[in-house]
C-alpha cells in the first residue's frame, strides 16, 4: 500500500513536468478576441494560396489567438520570449515597445512600406514610427481605427438634441435623468473636454507632447480653463454628467438613469444590450457653448467647442528576434491589405484604418447600426488626435499613471469645493502640466 502510494505520489509530481513536451512551433499571431476566427480563416487561406503559388510549402502553421489587445503590449513585455511573433497593439504603446533596444522589429520590406504609405492617413503614418538609437523606423502596420463616440437613448433624445451637450442636458432636466455617464475617469475617457476644439477656427491651446518633446505640453491656456469650468458645471449641476458609479454605465443606461454615454466601438455590444436596437442611437461627440459663467480670459461667452477624442489606430507589430522573421512581413502585408480590412469590417465590424474606406467600402454606407458606428467614428477623426504617446515610453506613463487624470476628475467634480475659483483651477492645471512633463506633482 505504502509502496503504491509512494509511486503514485511521485508520478503525480512528475506529471506536470512532462506536459510541456512535444509542442509544435507555429507562427503565433495575437489579434482582438472578436476577430480571432476571421483572421484564422483568412490566414489559412493565405497559407493555402502560398502553397499553390510557390514551389515550396509555407514552412509554418499559423495560429491566431484572440487576446485583449488593450493589454497585449504589457503581456508581451512581461515575457518577450513567450510573446507572439505578430501581435496587435494600440499605437500609443509603441513607446514602451521600442524603449531601450526595442522589443519589436522595424518594417523593412519596401512593398509593405509602400502599402502603408499609400493606404493610411498622415495622422496614422506619423504615430507608427519611432526612434531607436537616434534612427527613425516604421514599426507598426495600421489595420484598425477607433475613436470615442456618443451612445444615446433614442426614447428620450433625438438627432438634434445630441448635436450639443446643452441639448442633451435640457432633455435630462425635463425627464429628471442624468445627461451623461462616463465609462471611466481615466485620461482616455475624460479627454473629450480637454481635447475639444474651437469650432470657429478649429483651434486649441492644449499641447500634448508635440514633436515628441516633454516640454511641449501646455494645459494652462484660457480655453482649457474655460472648458473645464464648463465641464465643472456639467458634472456638478443637477441632471448633468455623472462620473462612473459602482453600478456601472451599462446599468445606468439600461435603467434609464442616464441618457447617454461616451464610449468606443468596444462598448458597442454592451450599449446595444443595454438599450436594444430600437433605442440605441449613435452620434459623434456633441458641441458645447461657453457661457458668461465659464468665460475666462480670451475664451469668451458664446464660443462653441466641438468635443474631441483620441482617434487611434491599432497596428500589427513583429517581435524582434523571431525565428520566423522571413515570413512575417508577408503576413503583415496580407492582414493589412485593403481587401482584408474591408472583409474584417463586414464580418467583425472592425473600423478600417484604410484612408478611403468611407468612400470605397460599400458596407460603410449601409443602413445598419454597425455602419453608423463606423461613420461616426470616421467623422470623429476630423475632431481628434491620435494619442501622442508612442515616441517615448514615459509619455504614456506620465499622462495616464501619475495622477493627472484623477486631478482632472477632481476639477470636474469640484472635489471638496476646492476648485470653485478660476485661480484654483488654473493652479491645478499647472500641476497637471507638470505631471505630463515630469511625472511629478511637485516642482523639482
Amino acid at each position, binding site marked *: 500500500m*505504502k*509502496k503504491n502510494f*509512494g509511486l503514485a*505520489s*511521485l508520478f503525480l*509530481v512528475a506529471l506536470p513536468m512532462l506536459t510541456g513536451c512535444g509542442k509544435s512551433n507555429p507562427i503565433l499571431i495575437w489579434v482582438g478576441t472578436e476577430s480571432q476566427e476571421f483572421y484564422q480563416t483568412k490566414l489559412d487561406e493565405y497559407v493555402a494560396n502560398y502553397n499553390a503559388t510557390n514551389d515550396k510549402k509555407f514552412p509554418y502553421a499559423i495560429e491566431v489567438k484572440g487576446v485583449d489587445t488593450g493589454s497585449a503590449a*504589457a503581456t508581451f*513585455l*512581461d*515575457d*518577450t*520570449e513567450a510573446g507572439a511573433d505578430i501581435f496587435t497593439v494600440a499605437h500609443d504603446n509603441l513607446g*514602451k*515597445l*521600442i*524603449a*531601450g*533596444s*526595442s*522589443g519589436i*522589429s*522595424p518594417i523593412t520590406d519596401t512593398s509593405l512600406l509602400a502599402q502603408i504609405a499609400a493606404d493610411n492617413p498622415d495622422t496614422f503614418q506619423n504615430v507608427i514610427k519611432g526612434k*531607436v*538609437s537616434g*534612427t527613425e*523606423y516604421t514599426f507598426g502596420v495600421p489595420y484598425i481605427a477607433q475613436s470615442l463616440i456618443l451612445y444615446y437613448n433614442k426614447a428620450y433624445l433625438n438627432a438634434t438634441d445630441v448635436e450639443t451637450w446643452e441639448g442633451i442636458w435640457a432633455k435630462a432636466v425635463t425627464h429628471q435623468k442624468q445627461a451623461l455617464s462616463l465609462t471611466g*475617469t481615466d485620461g482616455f475617457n475624460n479627454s473629450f473636454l480637454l481635447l475639444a476644439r474651437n469650432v470657429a477656427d478649429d483651434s486649441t491651446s492644449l499641447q500634448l507632447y508635440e514633436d515628441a518633446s516633454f516640454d511641449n505640453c501646455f494645459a494652462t491656456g484660457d480655453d482649457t480653463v474655460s472648458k473645464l469650468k464648463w465641464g465643472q458645471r456639467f458634472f456638478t449641476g443637477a441632471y448633468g454628467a455623472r*462620473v*462612473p*458609479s*459602482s*453600478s*456601472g454605465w451599462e*446599468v*445606468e443606461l439600461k*435603467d434609464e*438613469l442616464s441618457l447617454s454615454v461616451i464610449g468606443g466601438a468596444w462598448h458597442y455590444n454592451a450599449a446595444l444590450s443595454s438599450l436594444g436596437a430600437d433605442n440605441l442611437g449613435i452620434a459623434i461627440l456633441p458641441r458645447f457653448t461657453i457661457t458668461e459663467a465659464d468665460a475666462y480670459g480670451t475664451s469668451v461667452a458664446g464660443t462653441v467647442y466641438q468635443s474631441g477624442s483620441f482617434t487611434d489606430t491599432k497596428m500589427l507589430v513583429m517581435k*524582434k*528576434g523571431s525565428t520566423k522573421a522571413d515570413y512575417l512581413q508577408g503576413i503583415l502585408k496580407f492582414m493589412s491589405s485593403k481587401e482584408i480590412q474591408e472583409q474584417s469590417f463586414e464580418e467583425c465590424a472592425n473600423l478600417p484604418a484604410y484612408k478611403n474606406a468611407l468612400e470605397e467600402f460599400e458596407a460603410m454606407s449601409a443602413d445598419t447600426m454597425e455602419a453608423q458606428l463606423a461613420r461616426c467614428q470616421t467623422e470623429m477623426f476630423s475632431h481628434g488626435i491620435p494619442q501622442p504617446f508612442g515616441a517615448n*515610453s*514615459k509619455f504614456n*506613463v506620465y499622462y495616464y*499613471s*501619475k*495622477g*493627472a487624470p*484623477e*486631478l482632472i*476628475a*477632481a476639477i470636474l*467634480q469640484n*472635489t*471638496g469645493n476646492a476648485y470653485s475659483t478660476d485661480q484654483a483651477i488654473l493652479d491645478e492645471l499647472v*500641476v497637471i502640466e507638470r505631471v505630463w512633463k515630469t511625472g*511629478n*506633482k*511637485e516642482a523639482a
Partner: protein
Amino acid sequence: MPQEKNLNAESAKPQRRSKSAGAFFQKLGKGFVGFFVNIGKSLAKSWDNACERFTQGSIWTKLSHLIMGLGNLARKQIVKGCLYLLIEIGFLYIMIFSPKINGTPFGAKAIVNFFTLGTVEGDIFTVGDNSMLMLLFGVVTFGMILMFLFAYISNLKSSYKTDLDIARGKKPTTIREDWKSLLDQRFHVLMLTPAIIGILVFTVLPTVFMILIAFTNFDSAHPAGLELFDWVGFQNFRDIFNGTSEISARFVPVLAWTLVWAFFATITCYAGGILLALLINKKGIKFKKVWRTIFILTIALPQFVSLLAMRNLLSSAGPINQILINLGIIDQGIEFLGNANASQANLVRVVILLINMWIGIPYTMLMTSGILMNIPTDLFEAATIDGANKKQIFWNVTVPYIVFVTTPYLITSFVGNITSFNVIYLLTGGAPTFPGYKAGYTDLLVTWLYKLTIDEAEYNIGSVIAIFTFILTATGTLLAYRNSKAYKEEDTFQ
C-alpha cells in the same frame, strides 16, 4: 488602603508591559544570535565529519571527492554510483558550458551576470541582455550549487558508509535494498524530498527573487529585455520615505488603513462569531442545527460570489438604493462602495467592514460552537460548587477558554486580513480614489501592490511593499503569538 493597593497595581501595569516587551526583544535578540551560533556549530561539526571521512575513508572515498559516485561504483553499487556521476557531469556541464535558455545563460556565466545584470544593450535588430532573466538564472544557479553541494556531501557520506559496512563485515547495500528502505524505514525521505524540492522551487526561489528585485531599479522605465536595469542598494527603501512620488505620499496612509482594517475586520468577525455561537448554543434555542446550517451556507458559497452579490446589492443603482429612494429616505443613490467622491471614504470603509462581517462571522461561529460543546463540564461544576453565578462562569470560565483556544486563529485571522485582497479588490477596487493618486482610500498594501506591479510595472517598489507587508505580518504574528496565553501556558487546558 485597598484603593491605594489598586492604584499601585494600576501603575505597575505599564511597567510590567514594558518589562515583558523588553524581555521579548531580549529573547528575540538571543534567538537571532543563537540561530547563527547554531549554524556555526553545525558547520563546524560538518567540517569535522568531512575531515574524518577524508582521513579515515578508503581510497575510493578519497577519490569520490574528485569523481562523484566512484566509491559506490567500485563497490558495484552501479545505479547509485552512476546517479552521482551523472549529477557531477551535469553540474559541470552546466557550469562550464553555460547553456542558454531564451538567450540567457545558466551556470558560471549566470553567476557573473547575477552581479552585472547584463552589459549588452542590443540594438534595433539584435536582442540585448535580459536583466530580469539574468537575475532569475543567477538565483537559480546559486540554488543549483547548493543542491549540488548537498548531492556532493551525500555522495561522500554514501561512500564512507560503504567503507564502514565493509569494515564491519557487512555487504554494501544494493539498489534494491536502498529502494526497499526508501519504501519502508526511510519512507519519510521519499515523501519529503519532492515536497522540499517543490518548496525550494516554488516558494523559496521566487521569494528570494522578489526580495532581490527590491534592490534594483526594475520598473516601467526599465522593461525586461529592452533596457538593462541595475542594483541600486537601498534606494527604493529610501524613496518610500523621502521621495516626492506617489509611493512616499501614500505609503503611510495606506499602511495605517491596512492596520485599521486588519484590526477591525478581525475583531468584528471574532466577536460577532462568538456572540452568534453563544446565542445558537444557548439553552432553549430551538432548531439549533438549522440555524447553524443557514450560517454555514455563507461559507459554502464561494467568497467572490458573495462579494459580487453584495457589490450589486449596494451599487448606486442597486436594489438597496432603489428601496431607500422608493421609501423617500434618499433622493439619489448613495455610493456605498465608492466612486471618485473622496468625501464618502469613511462610509465606504464602514460598509466594507460590515460586508466582511457577513462573510467572516460564520467561520468564527462554527469554530466557537465546536469549542463551546467541548468545554470540560468539570470546569463548570467546579465553578458552581465554588459558588460562581452564571455571569461569573461566563466571564471566568467560558470566555477565557474560548480565547485561549482561539488565540492562534485570531492571530492568523489578523494576518490574513492584512493581506485580504479579495474583499477590497472585488468590492471597491480601492475606491474612492485619493485625488491625483492611484492608491485609493480603501486600498490595502496588497491591493496597492497589485496595482503597482500589474498595472504600473513598478516591480521594484512593489517588492519593497511586499517586504514591508511580510515584516508587518511576521512581526505581528510573532509578537502576538509569543505573548498569548495559548503559547505561554499551553498546558493550562490539557
